[in-house]
């Protein structure tokens, strides 16, 4: 080590080295910085001991305080549940009709229903109950297959459609074509008649009318007004579940009569609690078509 040397300009000591005539001032780390550094080191060691820190082969070191962020979340969720429980008990106790009348309860149910709808129903029925033509009915219009009163909606949500639940809606339309109940020609005629029903000018006296009266009226009723009890859609309007395009409505009707498609829906009482189903009911009812 070279001899200790003081720089004449700054008055500071140099490191004593010289590189091509350039010398460097000796500027040690500030003391406060060094103290903070060691404090951080000590803190880090204490942290490893107290908190979960190191990965092991099958897990990680738990730490003496036994903290886990999952546990934190758990606690928060529990607190949330407690906060919600007063509303949920109220909802549980009230009937859907009462909920619809009580403004504060209705507000809570609509918000909760919207969330539950987004999680459980929107994958098929779409956000806002927009539905998917040809597959899942639109819930925002005033046409219902299984009924649009609060009680009807609750029933459908609870037990679903054509599933394994004992109380689900079950009825199906016969396969008039596939099972050879009607000939292709007859199907063509009855399809013509059904389309005319929708245009509000029924083709009276046609062959189709006779076939309709014989085969379809039992479920779809006189004039095609439909029956909510058996889930027979109204045929006298322009809302078609299985085909929205008017140009091909007739073919669609024909296809349906030949070999009907049948939608299905889970029984939500098997998955959701009662309060949630009530919230869903008032929410669906509020989408625009509630009776």
């Amino acid at each position: 080590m070279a001899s200790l040397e003081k720089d004449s300009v700054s008055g500071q000591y140099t490191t004593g080295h010289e590189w091509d005539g350039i010398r460097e001032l000796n500027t040690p780390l500030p003391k406060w910085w060094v103290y903070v550094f060691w404090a951080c080191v000590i803190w880090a060691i204490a942290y490893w001991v107290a908190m979960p820190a190191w990965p092991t082969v099958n897990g990680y070191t738990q730490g003496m305080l036994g903290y886990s962020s999952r546990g934190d979340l758990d606690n928060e969720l529990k607190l949330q549940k407690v906060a919600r429980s007063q509303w949920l008990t109220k909802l549980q106790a009230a009937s859907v009709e009462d909920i619809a009348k009580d403004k504060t309860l209705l507000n809570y149910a609509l918000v909760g229903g919207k969330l539950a709808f987004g999680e459980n129903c929107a994958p098929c029925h779409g956000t806002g109950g927009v539905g998917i033509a040809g597959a899942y009915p639109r819930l925002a219009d005033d046409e219902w297959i299984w009924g649009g009163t609060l009680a009807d909606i609750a029933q459908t949500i609870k037990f679903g459609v054509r599933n394994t639940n004992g109380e689900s809606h079950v009825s199906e339309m016969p396969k008039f074509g596939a099972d050879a109940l009607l000939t292709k020609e007859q199907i063509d005629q009855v399809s013509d008649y059904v389309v005319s029903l929708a245009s509000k000018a029924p083709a009276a006296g046609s062959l189709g009318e006779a076939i309709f009266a014989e085969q379809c009226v039992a479920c779809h009723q006189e004039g095609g007004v439909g029956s909510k009890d058996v889930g027979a859609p109204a045929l006298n309007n322009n809302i078609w579940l299985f085909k929205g395009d008017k140009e091909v409505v007739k073919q669609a009707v024909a296809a349906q009569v030949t070999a009907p498609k049948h939608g299905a829906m889970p029984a939500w009482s098997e998955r959701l609690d009662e309060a949630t189903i009530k919230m869903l009911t008032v929410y669906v009812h509020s989408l625009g078509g509630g009776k």
Partner: protein
Amino acid sequence: MNKATPNVTSSNKLYADTVTIHPRKVKGPFRSIKWWLMAAMLAFWHLAPFIRWDRGPGVASQAILADMAGRRGYFFFIEIWPQEVYYITGALLFAAIALFFMSALAGRVWCGFLCWQTVYTDLFVLVERLVVGDRSARMMLDRAPWTASKLAKKTVIHAAWIAISALCGIGFTLYFGDAFQTVREIFTLEASIGTYSAIGIVGGACYLLAGFAREQVCLYMCPYSRFQSAMFDEHSLIISYEAWRGEPRAPSRKGESFEGRGHCIDCKACVQACPTGIDIREGLQMACIGCGLCIDACNTMMDKVGLPHGLISYDSEANLFARAKGEAPQTKLVRLRTVLYTVLLAAIGAGMLFALGTRHTVEVNVLHERSPLFVPLSDGSIRNGYTYKVLNMVRKDRIYSLKTVGIEGASLEVVGSGQGKGAETELQVPGDQISTYRIYVNVPENNVSNIKTPLQFVLTDKADGHVVQSETIFAGPGR
């Protein structure tokens, strides 16, 4: 290696030491003006929140109030909503240009007389003087070793400072809620953490800035001193030393004649009186806050030696030169600069008055629902959903009739109103609230042929006929 600390001498330090400035007590017109202004400003700051103004139920009856929870601002007869924050922008613009205007005319009157930093520093120095004594006593105390008496004096000073700062902080919080209630809550320890934090932050800032930072704020923190020269011209009033009259300076002995020398007796009264510790005889400088205390100090000395006032005066650069040349000084108020500032001030003021005078007391927001975009109903008609918000910005309920224009045969229905469908419907909007309605508009299918048809909502006040139109669209399947 030798670990000895290298010698640090004053010549190789990066930063100059901060010398505590102990301004000497002066008497004179500027000092008096400053006392009165300080009293008036502090009185306003602390008393204004207690001025009452009837605002109806649910709001504090306070003339000046920033109601954060209710999201309203009140200033006497003016009430603004959050989206009307441009009134505050206007007020700030007005204030900035007023500051420029003031500077162009009369120099740094803001800094010297009106700035809270100056006012509170003045007050804190007053506390020091009342406890310890004038400049020399305070300087001696600073140098003295720590004794019980010094500790007692310093304790009293800091206790008084903290009390003043706490009051300052409390004063701040009173503008955000009912003043009487807030005071009661603060002293019964029932106020919110937010209130106490605000007192801590504002009061702490007051204690640090007026007690310790003082002129450092003006020199290093405040941008205004740095760009003041942009506002000045030769006719702006500044604190000026008449060098032609004062120099060459020399101490004066009693009875000695002032023949052949300057009038400055080099007593340094001006330097000792200065709250930023500068020597005004070096000319206009950034650190001069224009408080005029050196003028009072100098005039007092001039009286003692029997010379005329005004060796240091509140005058313009132009007049300084005029006097030096023996010409008559003249005040020139109308200059391009001052005219421009006046025009700007008038324009902004007029704009704000106009905006306030024609302020809409109702606002409407319409949102067309997008999921579903439209719904075909069983009777063949098409329905669109809208979220319709009415902001009723007065404290009384209003009854409106709502209809649509643009599509033949459209009928509307307010969801949950129980009024049913109709070409026109009634909305009852409670006062001082935002009311949100869901509205369905039904149109027979044949009346809309496009995917998108323009539609207007027309809201008419049934009492005074005021109409608000809002544009939106009606979506359909198209044909």
